[in-house]
């Protein structure tokens, strides 16, 4: 692959860079291997039976191709628990993404477009809360949630993830850059109400920033482990992360449960794919959106 990329080196003017350029490419490809090989290993491992995992080399396929059997086991083991976890994860991630990004967009828009009493103090408090470790909220949230009897319900995880101070911060910065004041004033002169202006004009301008906040809220909720582990008492409401860690601990502790390894590995692939696909398809949006938090 390296030689292939080198064929692009044009002789004119770039010659003195050639050695440096070659070294740079070697370095970048070695690093690419570091980041991608573990994922390759996981994909190959998901095609192996339990015996195949132990008997064959990690970066090549085993004699028995066990992917179909692994998937079948994964989707049926413990009364199809994994399907339930995937469903829960999807519900957690979609509600957190849609809910928190919309709530953040409304708040960020208000902070950026209006003058009102307490604006600076309020924004300062919101910003400060970004820096408070999540641990501080975890224990009281658990106690409050179990007091209200929500600990066995999906709402225990959904509700706290709807509030995203960092999302508000990003949406405010984005709104300041993306919404020209004159446009809103023109709409006001035309007699449009404030909410109509937001819904029909401002929101469209906010869309790229909104998608970024939405996507990262989705990923954060999909991959969340600490909060669900704390607040969820029953395995029926687990997300994939907590479920897989639970199966893995069974496999590690009891030799009779070693049979779970192929399921944990296959489940890891299935549980990761949706997020990867989403990132690849929405590249255009989030790569631009990432500049948001870093400019100021």
């Amino acid at each position, binding site marked *: 692959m390296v030689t292939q990329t080198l064929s692009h080196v044009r002789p004119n003017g770039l010659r003195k860079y050639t050695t440096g350029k070659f070294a740079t490419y070697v370095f970048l490809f070695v690093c690419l291997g570091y980041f991608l090989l*573990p994922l390759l290993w996981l994909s190959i491992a998901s095609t192996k039976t339990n015996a195949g995992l*132990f008997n064959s080399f990690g970066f090549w396929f085993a004699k028995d191709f066990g992917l179909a059997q692994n998937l079948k086991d994964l989707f049926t083991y413990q009364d199809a628990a994994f399907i339930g976890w995937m469903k829960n994860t999807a519900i957690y991630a979609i509600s957190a993404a849609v809910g928190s990004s919309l709530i953040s967009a409304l708040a960020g828009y208000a902070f950026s477009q209006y003058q009102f009493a307490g604006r600076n103090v309020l924004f300062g408090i919101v910003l400060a809360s970004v820096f408070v*470790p*999540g641990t501080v909220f975890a224990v009281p949230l658990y106690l409050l949630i179990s007091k209200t009897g929500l600990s066995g319900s999906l709402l225990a995880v959904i509700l706290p993830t709807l*509030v995203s101070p960092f999302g508000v911060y990003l949406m405010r910065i984005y709104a300041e850059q993306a919404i020209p*004041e004159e446009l809103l004033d023109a709409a006001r002169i035309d007699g449009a109400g404030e909410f109509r202006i937001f819904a029909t004009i401002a929101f469209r301008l906010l869309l790229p920033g909104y998608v970024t906040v939405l996507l990262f809220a989705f990923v954060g909720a999909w991959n969340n482990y600490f909060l669900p582990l704390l607040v969820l008492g029953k395995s029926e409401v687990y997300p994939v992360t907590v479920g897989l860690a639970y199966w893995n601990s069974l496999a590690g502790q009891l030799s009779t449960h070693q049979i779970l390894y192929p399921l944990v*590995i296959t489940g890891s692939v299935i549980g990761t794919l949706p997020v990867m696909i989403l990132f690849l398809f929405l590249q255009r949006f989030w790569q631009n959106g990432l*500049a948001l938090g870093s400019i100021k």
Partner: protein
Amino acid sequence: MSVAKTFNTVKTPLWFRRARIGQKITPYLFLTPFLAGFLVFMVYPLIYALNLSLYRKKLVGGTSFVGLDNYVKAFQDDNFWAGVRNVLVFGAMQIPVMLGLALLFALLLDGKLIRRQTIFRLGYFLPFAVPSVVAALIWGYFYGQSFGPIAQIAVALHLKPPLFLTPSGIIPSIANIATWQYTGYNMLILFAALKGIPEELYEAARVDGASDLQIALKIRIPIILPAIALTAIFSVIGTLQLFNEPNVLRVVAPTVLDSHFTPNIYVYNLAFANRQFDYSAAIAFTLALVTAVLSSLVLLAVYRREAS
């Protein structure tokens, strides 16, 4: 992050401002959903925990107000400080490597030297899409002796398989997982910041005969310093809250990863294994204090360098 800069005043004609007096309540309406959630799920739990941390539940005599006793106990608690020491060693090892690599990648991929940079950008970023639980599972298998590829290769070469999850190896092993996961994400933030630098700034330097290295050190890095500071602060906060990776790895290294290996694991075990909610709340606030002190130090260090 000079937030103060963003507080522009909305400039509107006077007649218009008067017309809007009736709409004074509008911004509050826009803010209501967020503020309601913020009060219920952040402010109230915070106050609740603060109050909780001032009490102690005893086996005999029930719950009683003890003032700051829990905090005095926390400051003298060797388990807590051992955890803090572990995450500090982890951070001192992991953050410079991760951010150094992220910065190097961002500088290389932003330059004109490299073609097909999208492959690298996406490839480096991909581990961020992997849940940290899955990342810890994968690397746990990699480090393991039963079917880990590293042990397999060592055996094939007639070498002794290296042990990763030993008392001295555990922190670098976890640091590697975090570096694998978050380098690409930090790279993209720095990359986005570099993209924001206008081309003309380099041109002048290039005409003056500055090398790529000089341009990187004297122009590009100083300009994106705020973005670097942002990634550094979030890394410090994340480091102090280290939980997922060690908690998942505990299955394969139960003796090395004890119940207070990181402050967050300690809080978790105090609360859920020992049911000492009041003391665990005090530990959590002490951790928040340590976090605040450390992130201010990072900010100070970065901006002092910028000023000089």
